[in-house]
């Protein structure tokens, strides 16, 4: 299977090189011929070495690539135009290709190689990892705990355990040393799954508290103070904030409304439940999409509470959007240009609603605010776990025959998030009030410039 497929990638890789060298036939022979030849010989040797290295493990796309390095290398001295810069680039290319030998096995598409991929975490971490963090890492990587709020709360609670179990080594102070103890824990969590903006904000605040803790305080007291600070952070920025958002967003739901929501956001779920308990009569359309199908959970919660719900998948949104009064969605993070980073598909829902002039309301706590500006959902993203790809299909053939994993010409790409542009958002409901997306950047100002 792999051997007939090999020529194609090899020719693809070769094409740009040949083109590049051919397009620059500058006939100046100013550079010393000797050095060029020496470089070419080095190149050849390096390529041969790479070929020799990859020769034993036959499968994998790396072999044709290293093989493809051979033809251009001898041709370089003949084509006088290719100067030292060209050969340098070639050698750099060779280096990056060598890097691809490892990543290429798991993912063929190089342009998505920067997306964080959920990977199995070893039980035994490097260094001194607290068991609570090891457990949390596993829960993160298996998506047992997902959602920006849940992950942030779980992280903070685990850190409380870590802090309580921490003992300052002799000749050190807690405020100086605790952070060096926490950093590997954070690194371990990040290796399980890329850090969310919420976790980043919370950890930054925690670092600030640690560095500001009093040196003269007894160790146990200092630890208790930090744990209190963590509790307050969870209470003020998440729990109470959610309650305020429930109240404000609930006032936007009126009798007879049809609310549309996408996937599952813990805040939106609470808003809807609260509005229903306030005896407002409305119905909810839950829009969902593969592969996570998180909307099912929301659907079961809402319908068991007694709210009349409809459930449909993203492709069917066009047929219901005209009936909708308001769209409520949650967010993973909020950027200072007003863009909202949320579950993949949210942007589609928001744009569709904008097209039909349905108000789009994002429910989001201010601790999800990120100072950075994000312009697309490509530069930074994550890949959804692909393990249960076929679990929701009505299968007509045995599952084993439908294995999509091992196919060399098939790449499964499930980005986890996308970016909703500010133009398709009507309002963002935060605990400091309802804010138009154009004024998101004044959130720190609204919070009295306290650190986020």
């Amino acid at each position, binding site marked *: 299977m792999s051997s007939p497929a090999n020529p194609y990638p090899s020719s693809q890789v070769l094409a740009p090189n040949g083109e590049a060298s051919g397009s620059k036939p500058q006939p100046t022979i100013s550079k010393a011929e000797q050095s060029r030849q020496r470089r070419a010989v080095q190149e050849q040797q390096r390529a041969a070495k790479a070929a020799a290295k990859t020769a034993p493990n036959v499968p994998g796309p790396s072999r044709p690539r290293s093989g493809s390095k051979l033809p251009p290398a001898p041709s370089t001295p003949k084509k006088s135009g290719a100067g030292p810069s060209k050969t340098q680039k070639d050698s750099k290319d060779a280096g990056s290709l060598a890097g691809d030998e490892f990543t290429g096995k798991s993912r063929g598409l190089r342009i998505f190689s920067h997306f964080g991929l959920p990977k199995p975490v070893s039980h035994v971490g490097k260094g001194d990892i607290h068991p609570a963090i090891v457990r949390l890492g596993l829960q993160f990587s298996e998506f047992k705990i997902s959602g920006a709020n849940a992950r942030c709360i779980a992280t903070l609670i685990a850190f409380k355990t870590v802090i309580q179990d921490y003992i300052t080594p002799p000749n050190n102070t807690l405020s100086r040393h605790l952070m060096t103890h926490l950093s590997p824990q954070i690194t371990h969590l990040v290796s399980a799954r890329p850090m969310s903006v919420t976790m980043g904000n919370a950890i930054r605040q925690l670092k600030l508290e640690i560095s500001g803790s009093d040196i003269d305080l007894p160790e146990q007291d200092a630890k208790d103070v930090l744990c209190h600070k963590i509790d307050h952070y969870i209470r003020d920025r998440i729990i109470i904030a959610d309650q305020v958002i429930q109240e404000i967003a609930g006032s936007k739901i*009126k009798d007879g409304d049809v609310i549309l929501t996408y996937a599952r956001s813990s805040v939106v779920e609470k808003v809807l439940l609260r509005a229903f308990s306030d005896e407002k009569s409305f119905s909810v359309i839950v829009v969902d999409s593969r592969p996570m199908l998180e909307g099912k959970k929301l659907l079961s919660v809402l319908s068991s509470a007694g709210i009349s719900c409809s459930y449909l998948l993203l492709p069917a949104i066009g047929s219901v959007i005209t009936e909708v009064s308001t769209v409520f969605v949650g967010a993973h993070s909020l950027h200072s240009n007003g863009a909202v980073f949320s579950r993949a598909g949210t942007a589609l829902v928001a744009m569709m609603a904008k097209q039909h002039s349905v108000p789009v309301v994002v429910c989001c706590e201010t601790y999800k605010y990120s100072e950075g500006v994000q312009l697309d959902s490509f530069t930074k993203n994550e890949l959804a776990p692909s393990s249960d790809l076929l679990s929701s299909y009505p299968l007509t053939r045995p599952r084993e025959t439908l294995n999509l994993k091992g196919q060399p010409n098939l790449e499964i790409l499930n980005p986890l998030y996308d970016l909703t542009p500010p133009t398709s958002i009507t*309002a963002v409901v935060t605990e400091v*009030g309802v804010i*138009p997306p154009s004024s998101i950047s*004044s959130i720190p100002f609204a919070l009295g410039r306290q650190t986020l």
Partner: protein
Amino acid sequence: MSSVSSSESERSESLQSDTQPGATSSSFDIYATYERFLQNEDISTPLAAILALTELVEKSNAGTMFELVKALNDGAKSLKEGTPNPISLNCGCELFVAFVSLFPHDSDTFSELKTELVKQGRSYAAEALGYRDRIADLSLGFIKDDSILTHSYSRVVMKTLLRAHKQKRISVYVTEARPRGLGFVLNVSSLAAAGIPCTVVLDSAVAYVMDNVDFVLVGSEAVVESGGLINAVGSHQMAIIAKAANKPFYALAESYKFHRLFPLSQYDLPTHNPSILSFPRTGTLSTLSAQPLSSSISQLHEVPTVPSESHSALLVPLSMTPEQIARNPDVDYTRPDLISLVISDVGHLTPEGVSQYLVGMFAG
């Protein structure tokens, strides 16, 4: 509702300990005071509310800050119940309550603090009376020898136009602003008296006249947190047409009209109620619609046959019944993307600037 009853009970508790304060605050009729302030031509709704609440502070014998803020909130609530359109009233009440609760407590006794509050409230209101002149000065730079379209009647727009007339040659198109006809009645007489060329335009002829004007200038009932505008009904369609014709749409607003409110649509306004734009019940439909329908049919007959008499036919008052008027909205909400600039006494603000100003003002 529950908050009212709890405050009532609290007041009755304080009444037992000290009978004097309860008696005075209950005898004070805030709504009558508010109406009295509104008699003054120059005092707009939010200012009248601020002054009425100032008077409430003066009359009230609340012994603590908590009681005072409670009394103020109750006063604001009873004011709101009195008016059908509480939006601009709310601006004033909100501003004053926020001011009182954020006021630094450095007085020796609470009664001193109250006199200080009263003094501050009065001086603010006196200062705020000058805001319109300031806006008129600020907006002068945007007016050349222009023809201007305005909608309904607004004191600040009137002041601006009169101010501009002293230096520029302006001409004004005024919509009649049905159903109240404020634009027609008030604008034309005062503009004509000042010698400004002025034409009354049908509300339905806004699109027709738009190509002929240089910009649109409207006042405001309130400027909301989205940067949008709440104003007499018809402003929204005017803004849409101005946008379509690429004409600037300027809103004039005193800073006390900035309102912490975020309407998502027309139906999210506090003035909206289910009876607005509802269909009449079938029984009343036949009797109500019969009258205007027949008159319009008679006009249709007249217009093609005798064109010269079509004007006289139009002069027949095409009035809606009071029920029909009641079923129509009083104000509408103009989206921020349709507004070029909000000119206020705190400066020229883009709609985004308004929302940032509001977020900063009320969150601090």
